């Protein structure tokens, strides 16, 4: 888990130092234009994720179509589907195997909060108790356009970390 204070200090330092600021900006531009998701489709939302990569709602026009099989070569984890208690340690293990910088999107009601299965004995109510999530996309299943919008929101969040912190902490 990242230390909030360290991150904030690093960001302040990056903003005040001109050289570091411009390098960070350039690297961020590269990162957000090519998220490479690791294939972590669990249930029905995985099929909508596959349709998003298909020809009609093409993910390739954003640069996001390379679904890496191995988590060690990916930087985005889209938790698409119900996370069950049996699967939770596996999900955590895969998240830990991804190299920094990495982000996670919770796609679908089941990953956001348990969804329709929130009171089942075998379901983790929300993937954010296992993995730190950056963007939540509600829907059951969310339309491919929603998934694209969510990924673009993640892009906004990474390129403007100050704005995201302002919205989150209100300071």
């Amino acid at each position: 888990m990242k230390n909030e204070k360290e991150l904030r200090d690093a960001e302040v330092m990056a903003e005040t130092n001109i050289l570091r600021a411009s390098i960070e900006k350039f690297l961020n531009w590269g990162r957000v234009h090519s998220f490479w998701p690791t294939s972590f489709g669990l249930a029905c939302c995985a099929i909508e994720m596959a349709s998003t990569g298909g020809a009609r709602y093409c993910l390739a026009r954003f640069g996001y179509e390379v679904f890496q099989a191995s988590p060690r070569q990916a930087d985005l984890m889209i938790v698409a589907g119900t996370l069950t208690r049996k699967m939770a340690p596996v999900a955590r293990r895969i998240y830990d195997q991804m190299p920094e910088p990495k982000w996670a999107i919770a796609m679908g009601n089941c990953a956001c909060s348990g969804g329709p299965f929130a009171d089942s004995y075998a379901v983790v109510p929300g993937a954010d108790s296992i993995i730190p999530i950056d963007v939540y996309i509600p829907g059951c299943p969310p339309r491919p356009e929603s998934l694209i919008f969510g990924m673009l929101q993640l892009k906004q969040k990474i390129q403007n970390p100050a704005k995201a912190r302002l919205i989150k902490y209100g300071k």
Partner: protein
Amino acid sequence: MVSDSLRARVGELAARVNGEVEESLGVLELTVNHSDAIEALNGAKNLVDVPCDFLHDLCGMDLEDHLEVVYQLSSLRGAQRLRIIARVERDNPVIDSATRFWKGADFLEREAFDMFGIQFKGHPNLKRIYMWDDFEGYPMRKDYVIESHEQRAIMRVRKEGE
């Protein structure tokens, strides 16, 4: 809808295994005790003229004072249908396995064991199938208490070799 020959043969089978026959929405039901379940299945499989040799489903049921194992039988080459209900005690649920007749009953019996705790004697590999191996409790029983939100949000520790 139930043919006369099926009714007659099931009646004979019921007499042999001390079972009771009822009719429910067009399907004959034969209720037996768990000790006679294998003989009832064997008899149903070999009924003359109307063999019920395909097991469609095997499931557990939790009634207040006892558990039940319900077998749904019919045939790929005929219109006969039969339901066999075997009563099992709640405190010590043991019944013979149907895998000696149909290898496909393997997973179905593992599921009944996982969800209800019914032990199947003679099963080749009776382990939990849906829940993880260390899980305690039998979820489909009526007296199972579902854990709270907070307890379910804690990640369980995966043991090696699982």
